[in-house]
């Protein structure tokens, strides 16, 4: 009954490719009514693992966990799609889904650690530096950790538990080395990964008393407290904030993101239809590896939504979402901007 908010179902219009369909496939396999063959496995891997179904589930069913568990069994048996096994092989020799292995161990300590990850440098170069500049402007000197290392969310969702666990162990080790009590993230996805996936699915808690906070949430807090000042500029084109993938899994972020934007920019800010609690995934999910065409369709659907809302400039904080949107934006006449960089320009 969350089908109306499943971005994949809304794109494919296929009953199988909905929370109901994936749940049924898993149940049928357990009942012996279906086997995991190439067709059923392909269907199982078309879930974007965006979390919309769980966030809107009236029954609190952890469907994404059930899907991840089924995928884990397939990956363990070597019967996951070749694209997934290729990701596993890459992560067996690297910490990044995108780049080579260049993770540097933290050499200093501090109260705040910022997980740099492998997405910012790959998808939205400059966004990490902009985020750091903003944090500095708020009086925070974060210790960068995990630059070049994936946060484990996509590998976990693809059923690559050993690889995700390895990534989680390394990040927790880095975090511990910094002595930080606050772990900052550049995206809702990383926030969800550290807050939920690590302790629950990967049994790798961050450590006692460590809080996880999105950079955007912290910036909002600092603005509210008068500890971060942003200049306000007028934008002469309609603009919008696009809720990135996994937004629905994070805490109270919808108002936060918009509030920070409103402090820095004035003009005609419009809202997308698929926004906030009903925001849909874009291509920045595991689908970019397993079903790139479907991932691209999801991205284009978000851009189409923005176009229909009358936006000409789109802001987003999540580097992965920014990268995927930018790759398709020209076809829609949209100007996609990294929110961190845009805000840093207002310091």
């Amino acid at each position, binding site marked *: 009954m969350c089908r109306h908010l499943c971005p994949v179902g809304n794109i494919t219009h296929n*009953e199988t490719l909905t929370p109901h*369909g994936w749940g049924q496939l898993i149940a049928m396999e357990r009942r012996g009514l279906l086997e995991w063959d190439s067709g*059923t496995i392909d269907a199982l891997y078309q879930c974007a693992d965006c979390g919309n179904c769980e966030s809107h589930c*009236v029954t609190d069913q952890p469907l994404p966990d059930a899907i991840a568990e089924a995928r884990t069994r397939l990956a363990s048996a070597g019967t996951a799609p070749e694209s997934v096994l290729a990701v596993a092989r890459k992560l067996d020799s690297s910490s990044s889904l995108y780049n080579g292995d260049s993770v540097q161990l933290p050499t200093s300590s501090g109260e705040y650690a910022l997980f740099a990850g492998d997405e910012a440098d790959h998808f939205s170069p400059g966004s990490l530096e902009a985020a750091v500049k903003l944090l500095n402007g708020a009086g925070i000197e974060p210790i960068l950790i995990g630059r070049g290392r994936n946060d484990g969310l996509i590998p976990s969702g693809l059923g690559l538990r050993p690889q995700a666990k390895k990534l989680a162990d390394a990040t927790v080790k880095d975090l511990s080395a910094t002595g930080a009590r606050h772990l900052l993230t550049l995206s809702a996805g990383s926030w969800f990964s550290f807050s939920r996936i690590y302790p629950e699915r990967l049994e790798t808690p961050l450590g006692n008393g460590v809080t996880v906070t999105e950079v955007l949430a912290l910036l909002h807090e600092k603005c509210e407290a008068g500890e971060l000042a942003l200049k306000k500029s007028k934008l002469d084109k309609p603009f919008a904030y696009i809720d990135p993938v996994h937004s629905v899994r994070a805490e109270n972020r919808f108002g936060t993101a918009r509030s920070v934007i409103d402090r820095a920019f004035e003009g005609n800010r419009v809202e997308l*239809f698929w926004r906030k609690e009903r925001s849909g995934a874009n291509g920045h999910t595991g689908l970019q590896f397993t079903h790139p065409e479907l991932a691209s369709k999801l991205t284009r659907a978000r851009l189409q939504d923005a176009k229909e809302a009358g936006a000409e400039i789109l802001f987003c904080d999540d580097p992965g979402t920014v990268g995927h949107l930018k790759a398709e934006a020209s076809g829609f006449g949209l100007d996609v901007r990294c929110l961190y960089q845009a805000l840093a320009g207002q310091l």
Partner: protein
Amino acid sequence: MTTPPDGNPDSNRYSPDQFHYEMIRSELEEVVGQDHISTRDADKKIYSCDWSWMPQMWLDRGQPLRTPDFIVHPGTPEEISAILKIANTYKIPAIPWGGGSGTQGGTLPILGGIMIDVKRMNRLIEIDEQSMTVTAEAGINGSELEMRLNEKGLTLPHYPASANCATLGGYLAPRGTGTISTKYGKSEDLVLSMEVVLPDGSIIETPPVPDHASGPDFMGLFLGSEGVFGVISKATMQIDYLPETRLFRAILFDDLTKAIEAGRRLMVRRLAPTVIRLYDPSSTASRVKEILGYELEGAYMVVGFDGDADIAALQEKKAMEIFDELDGKDLGREPGEKWWNHRYDFYYPPRNLKLPWMYGTADTVTTFKHIETVYYAQKRAVEETYADWNVRYIGHFSHWFHWGAAMYTRFIIENPPEDAREALRLHNRVWNSAVTASLENGGTINEHHGVGLKLGRYMRRQYKEAFPLLEKIKHTIDPNGIMNPGKVGF
């Protein structure tokens, strides 16, 4: 037709039926394109089952269901037309599918064939704020349509529990009812016109408005037809402004008769309640307690009014006078508002009825004169006949009219037979008892879930001498009997 056992496209050796199968597949693919047809095993299995208890139970007991042979996702009425022509050529079933949320087995592909999923046809075509109508393709999701209307301060006042998954076409095909139908009407009261693709491939439109003196109610033929007369492809619906206020209260009656009388007086005095939800004492003691947390004895009623604040307040005041006359105890706003906020919890896990239990909703509708007779006849028929199964019978009166009300009655057996066949037989026997009690006392076989597969066998008893006329209409419209065979008694 039968899906060839050797249907694997990777196989080098085909079964004798494969040629026939591939011919049809090829023709369908030409119509919708290769991206919009599936013969994948995964898809066939998912489209083999709707929300009704019978197939769900069958699967839960580890038994396979008949699957469709082909699943197609047409993008236009012209494509539906071409698909139906192919179905006629090969004389194979064609079954329309919207959200798959039906509870009567109305979309089960019991003879295989072509499953026509209309969800690709999901365009919102026009919102006419002057005439207060919305026109959309039949495959648009109910909640999405509602959210898009809400963006403009508007609403399609049809709030079924299935809205998150049901489609506009699915609202209309079984003559569905939503929570606030008492004021705004059933889906059939909200529709102005429809586009329908007939079984022979003709694409027709009903007159632009429903209220006229330009011949018989032609559109009515397709409302409640559940796909046996064609495929609804587009509809224009009446819409409303989102109300300025919604007021809810709960009233407790120690006597069901007085409670029904209170509802009747609200309706015949045209106080226009948005909702009157009256739980019988059994439901009050079980469902209201479980879901809302109120431990009460008697009949629990929620009444609501909406619209302009001053008008709604006055309507509520008048209603309270009626409740007072009939010894109704005002429980205040909070229990009414809690019901409104949790109204769908009754139908979802973990509070819903669920397998391996056996259950069924024998909803019916009748006039005020007969309503209690039908209720007690059904209750006796179920409780006394199936006492050995420790059956429970609960119900509420959910949708009210100027002349009567709908009963949403349910039977529950917590320990049904484990064997799937025995369970199915018992389920049908309980249904026989409940429906017979309704029909013999002035009720109908259903009020808003539709007929589907489950109630088809009662159509002849419902329509008596008129049923052959319906059969003639069916034969005229669909001479090859391709449209959703086995449903609605055809």
